[in-house]
């Protein structure tokens, strides 16, 4: 059986095992084993995704699934370096999040069922090479997330969960509409049929988009309206993915969802779910419409700089620790947009490195917030102080995480930012990139400002006597955090192993889009 298929469905198989559990302790162990197995399998997947040619996929499977005449949906999966590193990231964060889920007491079986189902959805989305399958997995993710926030969340969990659900649904509509429009267009396009291409196959559509570049693109069948429809579909799909990233102005679900979600779910949300937006853009949005992308690049770059600067400014004004971290995600995901828009090797590398490294760093930051919330039962930055003296190990890890996030060299956050900056400044893919990049650099100062303020408010100064009894991070908390700290430091010093894995994917993107 295909290793990738096993990786996708193993968490879901854990669901079956959960049916036979008798108490919450067993459920916990099933969940933990599921997460560990996912991690191990995702590591194998990662190793299978190295040394591919540009545009080549490993671990492929292709089985006809729904066949209704031209409506020919396949179970078509495969990985390249890009999906490989993101699946690995999913496995890594699964373990950390599972450890952080240990303290969940309410409805344990249901929690772990949703937790495992979520991972099937995520890995399935990364592995899909069929548009329809992609959409199905995309929606499969939505539901467990909705319940995880809505049932196991904080006081305003219902509001946050519904907001998350509706926002994502809003985006999904555009994705579905886009898929359907593409389907109708290519199935009535004789040139497409003549090649023997499948209307839902992502590699087929990418290849066709590449060949039909001089003409009207994959929507050539629209004739005179092709450019207009291509623009509509491009931006529609962009919105679908932008909601996930999240791109300004579609980001307001994120702070609410994060603040209400339990710690492990925040970790997955920031660490993985946001990455799906960027992944979707790279895999579907841009390669399908290279012609539109060229004109859209300016706007994407502009949205990137808005995310970076605006996100940082809003983060600066937060008094809730978790909300601050949430807005820092908005800011940092802006670097991905900046890098995408540039389409230079440096820019794309910066963006993809940022996808991965933001995953570990923001996951780590949410764990950090969780540790202090578990003890203090509040997250008000102004009510802490001096925790470093009481919790030195925890404080040290937290500070490393924050410095990694503010882009300090020798920690992994630096490379994404640095390469996105130089790549974005260098590009001549679109006009105005230089000005956009120059404005974006101001984000560095704001970012330093909010993180250093947070460090000062939480960790420095006199210890608040109310927190005299706080124990340092427990062994379980430490393992969860160190699991993410190790890649943060290692890739900060030596990013080459990661870079080498996904480099063919960058070549492919530049070939298809650039």
């Amino acid at each position, binding site marked *: 059986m295909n290793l990738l298929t096993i990786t996708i469905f193993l968490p879901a198989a854990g669901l079956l095992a959960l049916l036979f559990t008798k108490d919450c302790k067993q459920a916990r162990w099933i969940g933990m084993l599921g997460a560990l197995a996912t991690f191990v399998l995702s590591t194998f997947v990662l190793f299978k995704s190295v040394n591919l040619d540009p545009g080549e996929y490993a671990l492929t499977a292709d089985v006809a699934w729904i066949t209704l005449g031209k409506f020919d949906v396949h179970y078509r999966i495969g990985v390249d370096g890009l999906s490989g590193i993101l699946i690995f990231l999913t496995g890594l964060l699964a373990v950390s999040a599972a450890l952080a889920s240990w303290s969940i007491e309410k409805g344990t079986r249901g929690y772990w069922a949703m937790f495992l189902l979520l991972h099937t959805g995520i890995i399935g989305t990364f592995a899909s090479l069929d548009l329809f399958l992609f959409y199905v997995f995309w929606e499969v993710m939505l539901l467990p997330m909705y319940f995880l926030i809505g049932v196991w969340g904080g006081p305003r969990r219902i509001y946050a969960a519904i907001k998350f659900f509706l926002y994502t649904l809003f985006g999904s509509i555009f994705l579905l509409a886009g898929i359907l429009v593409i389907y109708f267009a290519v199935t009535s396009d004789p040139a497409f049929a003549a090649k023997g291409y499948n209307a839902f196959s992502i590699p087929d559509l990418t290849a066709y988009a590449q060949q039909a570049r001089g003409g009207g693109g994959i929507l050539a069948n629209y004739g005179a309206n092709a450019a207009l429809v291509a623009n509509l579909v491009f931006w529609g799909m962009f919105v679908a993915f932008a909601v996930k990233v999240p791109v300004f102005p579609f980001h307001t679900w994120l702070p609410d969802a994060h603040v209400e979600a339990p710690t492990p779910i925040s970790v997955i949300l920031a660490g993985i779910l946001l990455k799906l937006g960027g992944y979707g853009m790279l895999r579907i949005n841009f390669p399908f419409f290279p012609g539109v992308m060229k004109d859209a690049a300016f706007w994407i770059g502009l949205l990137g700089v808005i995310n970076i600067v605006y996100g940082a400014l809003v983060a600066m*004004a937060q008094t809730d620790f978790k909300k601050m971290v949430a807005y820092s995600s908005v800011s940092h995901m802006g670097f991905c947009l900046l890098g995408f828009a540039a389409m230079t090797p440096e820019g794309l590398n910066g963006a993809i490195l940022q996808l991965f490294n933001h995953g570990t760093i923001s996951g780590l930051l949410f764990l950090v917030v969780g540790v202090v919330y578990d003890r203090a039962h509040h997250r008000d930055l102004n009510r802490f102080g001096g925790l470093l003296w009481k919790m030195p190990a925890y404080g040290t890890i937290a500070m490393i995480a924050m410095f990694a996030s503010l882009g300090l060299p020798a920690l992994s956050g630096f490379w994404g930012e640095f390469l996105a900056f130089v790549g974005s400044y260098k590009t001549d893919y679109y006009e105005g990139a230089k000005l956009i990049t120059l404005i974006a650099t101001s984000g560095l100062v704001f970012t330093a400002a909010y993180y250093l303020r947070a460090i000062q408010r939480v960790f420095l100064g006199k210890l608040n006597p109310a927190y005299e009894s706080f124990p340092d991070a427990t062994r379980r908390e430490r393992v969860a955090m160190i699991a993410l700290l190790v890649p943060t430091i290692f890739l900060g010093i030596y990013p080459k192993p990661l870079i080498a894995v996904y480099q063919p994917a960058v070549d492919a993107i530049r070939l298809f889009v650039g």
Partner: protein
Amino acid sequence: MAETLPSYVPWILFLPAIGAVVQQLLGPRLPRKGDLVVVGTMAASLVLSVVTMLAWAKLPAGHYFAASWKWFELAGGVTFEMGMVVDGLTSALLCVVTIVATLVFLYSTAYMKGDPRYHRFFFWLSFFGVSMLILTLADNLLMLFIGWELVGLCSYKLIGFWSEDLANAEAAKKAFITTRVGDVGMLIGIMILYTQCGTLHIGEIFAAVKGGAFGGQEGLLTLAGVGLFFGAVGKSAQFPLHVWLPDAMAGPTPVSALIHAATMVAAGVYLSARMFPLFTPDALGFIAWTGGITAFIGAIIAVSQTDIKKVLAYSTISQLGYMILGVGVGAPWAAMFHLCTHAMFKACLFLGSGSVIHAMHHAQDLKDMGGLRAKMPVTFWTFVISTLALAGIPLTSGFMSKDAILLQALHEHRYVLFVLGFGVAFLTAFYMTRLVWLCFMGKPKNEEKFSHAHESPLVMIAPLVILAAFTPWVFWGGFAEDFFGTPAYYESHPDFEHVQEAYIAPGAEAPHHEHPWYFQLLAYTTGGLGLALGIGIFLSGRRDEKSRLLPAPLHDLSVHKFHMDEMYLDGIVAAGNALSEQSHWIDANVVDGAVNVSGAVSLFVGDASGDADQVIVDGAVNLTADVAEGAGAMVATAQTGRIRNYITAALGLTAVVVVILVFVL
């Protein structure tokens, strides 16, 4: 010409790095908490640095050591490298850094004795050493930037070492953020150079510029140079970003000596000297004026400070201004010379002040001092010798290096800066005399503290003596001519000559100048006059640390530090906070508000099929209650039917869109 890098050179960096890791991992369990590991590895690094310098000095003129390693490669053959280069510039700074670091580490073993976080202190000291050596050895801007940021981190951690006191944490934060502003400029410079030259390797950048990478874009090259220089403005505490350095004195005194006087703050000068061939005449003018203004402001403020470390801090700002001025007037070799001499005597002064503070049980205000000369003879004499060097008295190292800069200013026809420079020299001699007098001479002002005062232990005064030994002219006179006096490292710069032809300001090719008679007169008398005035004023004993010494307007500016802190706090910081609050408000009300309104609208559409009841309930709830506070249970019950309605609306909308796109268009 590049020569193979001797195999021991990387160990200059690796040894302290190993020391830092070992000390961090085993620190608390090692004897003496691992401080000897840190001191020992740095001392070994010092030995290797000296060996390296001697090896370099044996090379024929124009030769240098270099090696680089591929770090990673991106699509399209874009590679990023790490590499080391050893030329005169590198070897000079290597020696300075390792000498001062070794002595300060040694000194710290006594100064920090008994501190509960003693091992953390030594970890950050050694990590600083490593970062500084990365910066020093780098042959490319990426690696240099990495070291640059890491020394900033160490500076932050060490300024705020005693962060139980929030004032220290504030000072650390201020330092990091202020220098980060400069770093943004540096990053912009790096982006421009990378875009135009396609590489970050410094030698290749020079070659590319020579090859016309900026063909016809003089303005852009100026911008790149000024951008890089802006990094130096932050790190080397130049006007207008100098405000962090005096606050940085919140750190333990050895830190002030090592990082905030001798090495890290000089990194900006090193960067400017290293990148000198890139600076266009316009950029050089900007640099020269920045340095001149900084030198002046620093000296004026130093005159009225009452904290012993603050005097030295402003003096450091002023002297860094000199060095930057040296770069700006086309004499980076003189700037580097002054960097080296200054590092020695300023480290000595700071460690001396630390010795005093240690003796006075952490009192550092001049109002508590006086008369310490008798109790602390070694500290006193080394302090005086270093003061003479700082004041630029003939036969000291400071005299030589300072005059080299001012002579160049004269020859570049920067007459205003030339006069300003001598004005600053006069002020320097004056405020240092004031400091020595108020601290060591006269009668003790605080009898109680005075009675406990004592000379510091041997590990503290030995570094003072060693550093003071570097101040006489003879030490530098022997080889300064070869090392700094001729542009040896210019020649060793890859392709420098060609870049020089195109971009260096006229006159800079010949750093050997005549000394006109009025120059000699000024040079030999200015320091002495300042000294004499200082002694004259304080000899009577009627004036104390609060006495007004400057004409009224200058005195006010001096006491209020030119109102720079207030301007930043009320201007830029306040504006930043306001912008942040505004953005937050917009986010919560406008952006999210629009979301909630559109939610309500689509709900209305979804409900249009019937159930008008729920429209009213939900619409009202949606627009008001849940937006603001999300009143728990009420919202929860109201929501149940809602999802269905939303989905109805959503799917209806999808259908309409698809139908239009597929069948209408």
